């Protein structure tokens, strides 16, 4: 740069540059930072380019809504983008990513009630409250979803059978409607909106504040034990047996097992420690004690582990991996109950960062069905047999127990869920969708339902068949009432409901 005493006047320089360059039509018109990006589902099997707006506060969020309305563009709400399918993809419209609008507004250490901005993640939350002796009532298998995303999809955890869904832990929320108005809803005030927006996959408005109950814990660790099961029936029997005493129950299923070993797997039972069981709670109730190791065996960086998995991401490799897990599970089941940190037990999906990349460029879908307890055994046996008959076997199967909840479009019921991960490739895509459609018919015939955070394969007629028709009509009426112009839209909305 030139010497300020002798160099040209900086203002004149700026002016000169301005004159050479025509001014842009509307410089810096967007209040929130924005960029054109490829926005995809977590499973990478669907995506589209969209302008992504990242408001950092209510003013910027409101500006984003007003701006998009003025431009005639739809808004797809998005948090951390953890939904596997197209729940936060909005082809042809804009995406409002509220993950930067994420301060913890308050936490009452006496009652365990937290007040959160929408972008606070489960990770932010547990790290904030654990040292004060609390843990979120409901967490997903990954700690990255935001509070708004968790509320919109009404996520559940391995303790769904005991405490319900994320929505059950919400006391109250504020919602920014398409009209620009912010309304407060709880179980008394605007109760219908409360029960519709939770699990309403963002179609009624954008969460701006969430008041959430958390659970008192007396240790940073839990007692965990494993049960090896030879088939599906055995797994279900163990679940029912453990249900009244366990705090968490999750089953892993080797989907390659056949005949009398159909549905063989491993159950993990988690139990909170009672006061006094942990001699040093002040040590275990720290964030450091919860941290997952960043290296394996102290040397191998975890961020690269997915590369080791990639060569096994085929039918042969995955049948080997599943089988070896069955065997190691048999050994684990002989162990005495052991202690594990909350984060270590809860966030299984975060052990290997970006493990989804092992699935290759086509990505993956998770096909999770929820089936009433009366028909579950028959339906899931049929699903696994159908997978074997088609030759399209899931590489990962996860089994959970659920209970009903009062939300309009809830997926949960007094029954079970079985989540199956399928690899997607350009070659198998069509066949896989057809396969899933056949599985869906089996699930629906057993009175089952699906979960929007996972889905990418349902058709509109199938989605309409799965809810009590009254619930869906009430939801669609609320959509019409609060968002008559259809401002909030996603691929999921268009795929399943827009034409209803």
């Amino acid at each position, binding site marked *: 740069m030139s010497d300020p005493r002798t160099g040209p006047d900086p203002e004149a320089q700026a002016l000169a540059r301005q004159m050479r360059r025509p001014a842009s039509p509307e410089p810096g018109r967007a209040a929130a930072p924005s960029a054109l990006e490829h926005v995809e589902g977590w499973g990478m099997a669907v995506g589209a380019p969209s302008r992504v707006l990242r408001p950092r506060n209510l003013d910027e969020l409101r500006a984003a809504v007003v701006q998009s309305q003025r431009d005639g563009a739809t808004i797809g709400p998005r948090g951390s983008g953890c939904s596997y399918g197209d729940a936060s993809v909005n082809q*042809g419209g804009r995406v409002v990513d509220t993950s930067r609008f994420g301060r913890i507004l308050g936490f009452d250490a006496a009652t365990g009630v937290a007040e959160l901005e929408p972008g606070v993640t489960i990770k932010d939350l547990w790290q904030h409250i654990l040292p004060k002796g609390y843990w979120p009532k409901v967490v997903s298998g990954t700690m990255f979803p935001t509070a708004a995303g968790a509320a919109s999809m009404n996520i559940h955890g391995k303790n769904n059978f005991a405490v319900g869904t994320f929505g059950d832990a919400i006391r109250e929320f504020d919602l920014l409607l398409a009209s620009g108005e912010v309304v407060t809803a709880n179980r008394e005030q605007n109760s219908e909106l409360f029960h519709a927006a939770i699990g309403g996959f963002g179609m009624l408005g954008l969460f701006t504040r969430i008041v959430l109950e958390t659970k008192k814990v007396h240790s940073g660790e839990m007692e965990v034990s494993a049960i090896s099961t030879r088939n599906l029936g055995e797994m279900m029997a163990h679940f029912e047996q453990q249900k009244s005493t366990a705090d968490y129950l999750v089953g892993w299923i080797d989907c390659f097992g056949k005949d009398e070993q159909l549905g063989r797997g491993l159950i993990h039972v988690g139990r909170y420690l009672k006061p006094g069981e942990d001699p040093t709670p002040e040590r275990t109730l720290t964030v450091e004690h919860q941290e997952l190791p960043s290296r394996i065996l102290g040397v191998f960086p975890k961020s690269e582990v997915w590369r080791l998995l990639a060569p096994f991401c085929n039918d042969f490799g995955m049948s080997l991996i599943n089988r070896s897990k069955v065997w190691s599970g048999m050994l684990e089941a002989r162990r005495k109950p052991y202690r594990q940190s909350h984060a270590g037990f809860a966030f299984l999906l975060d052990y290997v960062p970006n493990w989804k990349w092992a699935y290759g460029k086509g990505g993956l879908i998770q096909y999770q069905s929820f089936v009433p307890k009366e028909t579950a055994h028959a339906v899931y046996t049929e699903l696994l047999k159908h997978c074997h008959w088609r030759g399209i076997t899931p590489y990962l199967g996860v089994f959970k127990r659920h209970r009903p909840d009062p939300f309009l479009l809830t997926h949960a019921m007094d029954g079970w869920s079985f989540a199956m991960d399928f690899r997607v490739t350009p070659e198998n895509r069509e066949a896989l969708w057809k396969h899933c459609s056949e599985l869906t018919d089996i699930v629906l015939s057993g009175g089952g339902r699906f979960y929007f955070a996972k889905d990418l394969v349902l*058709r509109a007629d199938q989605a309409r068949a799965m809810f009590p028709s009254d619930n869906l009509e009430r939801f669609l009426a609320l959509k019409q009432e609060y968002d008559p112009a259809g401002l909030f839209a996603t691929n999921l909305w268009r795929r399943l409901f827009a034409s209803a």
Partner: protein
Amino acid sequence: MTETASPTGPRTLAIPPRPPDLQGIPVGERRAIVVGASSGMGAALVRQLAREGYQVAALARRAGELETLKAELEPVARAAGGAVTVRAVDASDAGAAPAMFEELVLGLGGLDLFIYAAGVMPKLERTEYPTDKDLSVLDVNCAGLVAWGNLAAHLFTTQRRGTLVGISSIAGDRGRKGFPVYCASKAFMNTYLEALRNRLSEVDVHVCTIKPGFVDTAMTQGMKGLFWLISAEEAARQILSAARKRVNTRYVPGRWFFVGTTIKLIPSFVFRKLNF
């Protein structure tokens, strides 16, 4: 901004459509933007992409030339299953780039190939130091590349797929007496593109730097002592071939590699005696 998907549109099929492959590259992955497309190599690239069935957006300052190009290519593109869109824009107008980029990418439904072919080289006397003219070279060759290249790089990063091609020049290899700022702008391009290549390699996105020698275009009209002159069409063929082979830096035609390498090795005290 235009909305392509209506919230009330009839869409019941859950299977996302995926057309069959054509000549190795899936139809859905043939979407390109060419900046600087009204003449020379840019126009030739658009011609070839249109023939290959790409959906190609051709951008340049001169609307008339673009319309002529569109009229010429529309039947060709349609026959091959592609389409040609044209937009008149000043490549150096960084402020206009984001909105135009968004409009085009949404219209195309994504982007697989981005080519920056805009470039200017004003005629210059050996004793002339015209700052205005020089800065306008930087505006097109450097600022324009940064404005558009950043947008494309950001999109490609998030989709972990795509190819970015920048048309630089052999002129960027050394600072020559004839065109100080032009040479410097091309050196800037080379370094910027190399940095993008290194960044984007992490997400499997390829960046290809093209260093053409003498190509028969408006830029070389009236120049004396040209050799190894190739047509813009031939250059375009070689450019696309290099980009598809994921070559990092390609001289066009290839034999300029030897010239470029030799020129880079000449010591400065010798180079300044040479007269080109």
